[in-house]
Every structure is written in structure tokens, then in C-alpha cells.
């Protein structure tokens, strides 16, 4: 599903150049649930941004579902993001003047799905995250966990190839975190490929594979025994 070869990325900080990713090689198969771990500054967010086509790599190859991702124009990148990727952010990033339903329907709007079909589909995904009764509520009326579930529904609505979660539990207490992880696990059980960036050990162990990043290189890449989040909920 995802294939990365010898990926390099550096940022210019004034006159200095900060080498963030120093040759990443990594492969994700369909249906995997991968945790990308590392301390801050390890390059994990940068990696996720490149995977998410929000940022470009300096050198190296990136193939997503057989499509080479290289030198994309903003328009092409936006289309690919819409088609291939679903984003889950630490701070939810819901649009606060739109209802939960409208938020979930937004990626479908950019796919030019007709209004009625869009609403139905969005409602379906809200139902899957258990928030159907909250469809008409605005983000300000929802709890943190609910907001993240709306965000997950939104990420899934466009039926992407890969879900990218950037610290999805970073702004949540542990109980809610487990609820969200439970949901992510269930989505993964249905065969969806998910990448989770986290620095929390317990969250990482709820995935099926952990990739450890340190100073811009992968120091460890192992399959693990998944801890089901359901038991804590």
C-alpha cells in the first residue's frame, strides 16, 4: 500500500539546514495498523506530513497504492489527498460553525458527491462512530472524545486507502483515548490501513506494528501482539 525508499528531508533554519529525515525505508501492507513512535524531534510528524502529501520530500521515492507521489502541484496533491487519504488530527480540526454531519460530509463535497447522497453517506459514517444522535450538533457542543469520533468519521467518509492519525489521543484523557483507539482498531479490523503517530507506549501497543524513529532514521521496526483497547472501555 505504502512504499518509501531512501526518503530524505531537511528544513532550512536561517543559515543552518536541519536534516530531519535521513533515509527512511519502509513499507506498509494493506490492512496494517502501524504506530510510528519517537520522541519530539525524531521526525515522525515530518514523515506523516510527507505521507499525507502535506509536505514534499527532498529525495527518495514514495509510492501510494501503486501511484508514484512526486512533484505534485497543489491541485493534484489536494485531489490525491481527497482520494487516497483520511486525516485525523490531534486537535480534531473540525470546522466549528458546521454541524457534525456537515463536517463529515465535507470531504465528499470536495469529491463532488451530490448533496443528498453526501448527507446519507455522512450520516452512515456518523452512525458507525456512534454519533448519529449528535448529527446536528456543532463541535462546541461535543466532548473531546466525541469530536475525535466525528473527525474519524470525516476521515473515513471519503473511503480513503489509508488513514493517517497524528497523535489522535494527544488531547484526550486515557479513558477517552482508549475509546478512540477501540474505534480505530475496529476500523482496522474491517481491513483499513491505518498509520498512527504517537509518543504514548500504551497507544502504540494497541497497534499491530511499531516503527521507532530516532534522529531521522528508523531504529526499530517490529510486529507486536496487539493489545485490544476494548478491555479498558
Amino acid at each position, binding site marked *: 500500500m505504502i512504499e518509501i525508499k531512501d526518503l530524505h528531508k531537511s528544513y532550512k533554519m536561517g543559515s543552518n539546514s536541519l536534516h530531519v529525515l535521513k533515509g527512511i525505508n519502509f513499507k506498509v501492507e494493506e490492512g496494517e495498523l502501524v504506530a510510528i513512535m519517537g520522541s519530539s524531534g525524531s521526525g515522525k510528524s515530518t514523515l506523516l*506530513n510527507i505521507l*499525507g502529501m*502535506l509536505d514534499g520530500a527532498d529525495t527518495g521515492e514514495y509510492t501510494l497504492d501503486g501511484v508514484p507521489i512526486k512533484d505534485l502541484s*497543489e*491541485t493534484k496533491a489536494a*485531489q490525491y*489527498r481527497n482520494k487516497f487519504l483520511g*486525516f485525523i488530527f490531534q486537535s480534531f480540526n473540525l470546522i466549528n*460553525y458546521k454541524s457534525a454531519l456537515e463536517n463529515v460530509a465535507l470531504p465528499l463535497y470536495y469529491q463532488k458527491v451530490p*448533496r443528498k447522497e453526501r448527507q446519507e453517506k455522512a450520516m452512515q459514517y456518523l452512525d458507525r462512530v456512534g454519533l448519529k444522535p449528535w448529527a446536528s450538533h456543532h463541535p462546541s457542543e461535543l466532548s473531546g472524545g466525541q469530536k475525535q469520533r466525528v473527525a474519524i468519521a470525516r476521515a473515513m467518509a471519503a473511503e480513503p486507502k489509508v488513514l493517517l492519525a497524528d497523535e489522535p489521543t494527544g488531547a484526550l484523557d486515557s479513558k477517552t483515548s482508549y475509546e478512540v483507539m477501540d474505534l480505530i482498531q475496529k476500523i482496522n479490523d474491517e481491513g483499513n490501513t491505518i498509520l498512527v503517530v504517537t509518543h504514548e507506549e500504551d497507544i502504540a501497543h494497541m497497534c499491530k506494528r511499531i516503527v521507532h524513529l530516532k534522529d531521522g532514521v528508523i531504529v526499530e521496526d517490529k510486529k507486536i501482539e496487539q493489545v485490544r483497547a476494548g478491555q479498558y472501555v
Partner: protein
Amino acid sequence: MWVFDRDLWIEIFHTLGKNMFRTFLTMLGVIFAMVILVLLLGSANGMSNGFNKIFAGTASNSLFVWGQQTSMPYKGFERGRRIRYKIEDADILKKQIPEIEVLAPRIELASHRGTVTVYRNGQTSGSSVYGDYPEIDNITKKKLVEGRFLNQTDMDQSKKVCVIGEETYKLLFDKGENAIGEDIRINGVYFSVVGIYKPNNNINIDGENAVFIPFATFQKAFNSGDLMGWMAIAVKENTPVPVVENQIKDILKAKYDIHPDDERAIGSFDMSEIFNNITAFTTVLQGFSFFIGIFTLLAGVIAISNILLITVKERTKEIGVRRALGATPKIVKRQIVVEAIVLTTFAGLVGFAISVGILSIMDSMWGSGDDFPFVKPMISVPQFLVSFILMVGLSVLIGLIPANRAVRVRPIEALREE
């Protein structure tokens, strides 16, 4: 077509409605600009209409020619010779200058601008007395209060009839007294009144205290022979009056042995010159109004652009999220430009409605044009369309500034902003 994209409109009204007060304040600039533009244009139009009303009844392409005294000796004649035209000149001129549409000779009793005592039942008035051709009515239209103007039958039969001015009527008759059919006496000759005219509050070459009698009657009654005092001439449309004026002067100079360079022997007055001046004045006024209005509008639209820039800044994160979810730069841009158009158009229409209301009030208060030239102040449909298209055009151009700002921020940077 984006115009039919219901979701785009929902998005836009969502964003605009989110901050009603700010949206309203933003629009104020454009509302005021539109009010100023329409008021200025409407007032300029009102003045133009007012002037037109003043000149209504006077053929704009007309001139008047009369005789004066020579100022140069020529062919043995001394200077200071008085030029007196003959009635035959009218036919000569008409024949030689095809551009002449109407030529109405006139003769005046006593000297130029002089008055004659008119009697009636012991009442008198010092009035100007003119012998006229009925055609004069095609050049300077008289507003008749009662009766009729002189006609061809009066002329053919040399009827002793007259048309008098309202001022003359007041001097000779009691208030409310019937004058039609009554006789008045001029130099011992009786004339029956057939019409009374009213000064129409505008250019009035003949004055209000005057008596008009048929030219033929004048010749017989006052023994003027074949003399002619002056001529009122209307030239054909699209012919410049000065050209005809020069032709007339050349012919008359040759006929009466006037030195070709003598500027004073023949008096003339070109009516079209005044019209041209006033038309030029009102055109400049309208142009100026447009100029000021458009720049005010520009200022108003820039204010909208400014607010949108602030909005874009505030919405950086939201725009980042949208782009992460698949909004292309084009979609983001389009939304902001359409917001600018919607704001401007709506504000423009509100301003237009307000100013049209004000113009109507102005019209009902001063629009009669009696006191000063101001009639039907309103902007025309083409003027409205031009200002509206300009306004929308400006809003698109100006809306592109915040729109470009919105897409210049990379989604990753937008998302990072907390």
C-alpha cells in the same frame, strides 16, 4: 457552473452570516460609495434635464441675424452706415443656402429694443411690437395660455390680429377679464387679440411684454414697405450653425456693400453655441461624478478586500483543514472571490436602493425645475449597468488579493498554527 452550486452558496452564507456585524460594517463602505455615485450621477442628470427643460421650445440649431452699423468704409460708403435688410433677402438666402430649414423674417416697430405705447380702454402699456411670420413658432415656441398663435391665414389675408404677452395682458386688461377678441390700439390701428402667451421661465428673446402681429399686416398698417428687421433661422440637423452663419453673412455683405472684414455691420447670435456649452458642462459634470463615484467605490471595495484578508488570516487553520480534506486551491480561491462579489453586490444594491429613494425625495421637493435647473434627477439604465459591472469587476479583482493569500499558505503551515 459555480453559480448553481447550492453548496457553495450555503458555504458562503455560512461564513458571512457567522459574523453579521462585521459583514455589515464591511458593506457600509460600498453602500456609501454606491449612494454617492448614484446621487452624483442622478443630480448631474437632473441638472442636464433641467437645462433641457429651460431650452425646450427653442430650436437648438438656430441663429438670429440683424442689421447694425458698418464700422469700415467700403466702396465709397462711409463707416457708420445703418444696414437695413429687405424682405427679398429672406428668399435669396433660402434659395442660396439649402441648409436653412426655416427662415422667419421679423420687423420691429420703432428702434431695436424700443417700445411702443399700446392703448386699450384708457389703459396703456409700453410694449415691443413685432411683425412676424407664423414660422417663428418653429424656432422659438410660445407657450400659449389662451387662444392661438398667428397662422398662415392671418398672414395671407393681412388680418389685424395680435398675440400678446402675459405681461402686456396684465397692463391692458383687468384681472380675469377676457381678452380674446378684444381690440387693442397701436399707433392708431386696432388689432384683435387672438392669443396670450406665457413666459416659459427660460430663454426669452422676445420678452414678456410684447405684441406679435402678422408680418403682412405690419407692412400695411405701419407702412414698412419691403424692410425687414431681423431673421430667425433654423438650420437643418447635423449642420453646424457657424457654417450657415458665415454663408449668410457673406451673402449679405456682398449684397449691401459691406467690407468683408467688417465684423460689426451684421449682428448675429448663435443659439447652438449656448447649447453646446451647456451640453459640454453637463457632460463634464457627469464625467466628474462618475470619476469620483468610481474611486469612492474602489475605496469601498478595498475595505471589503481588507476585511476578507483579516477573515482569511483568522481562517488559516480552517482553510488548511479544508485543503487537507481535498479542497483544491481553485476551490478555496473561488469561495473567497465569490464572497467578495456577494458582499459587494449586495451592498451595492442596498446603496442603490437608498440613493434611488433619496433621488425620488429630491425630485418631489425640487424636481419641478422652477427655481433652478433640476428636473427628474435619476440615473439611466446604462449608467446603472456600467457602474454595477464596474463594481462587480472591481470586487473580483480585489477579492483575488485575499484569495491568493489564502492559498499561498501551505496546508501544513496552516494546520500547525494553533
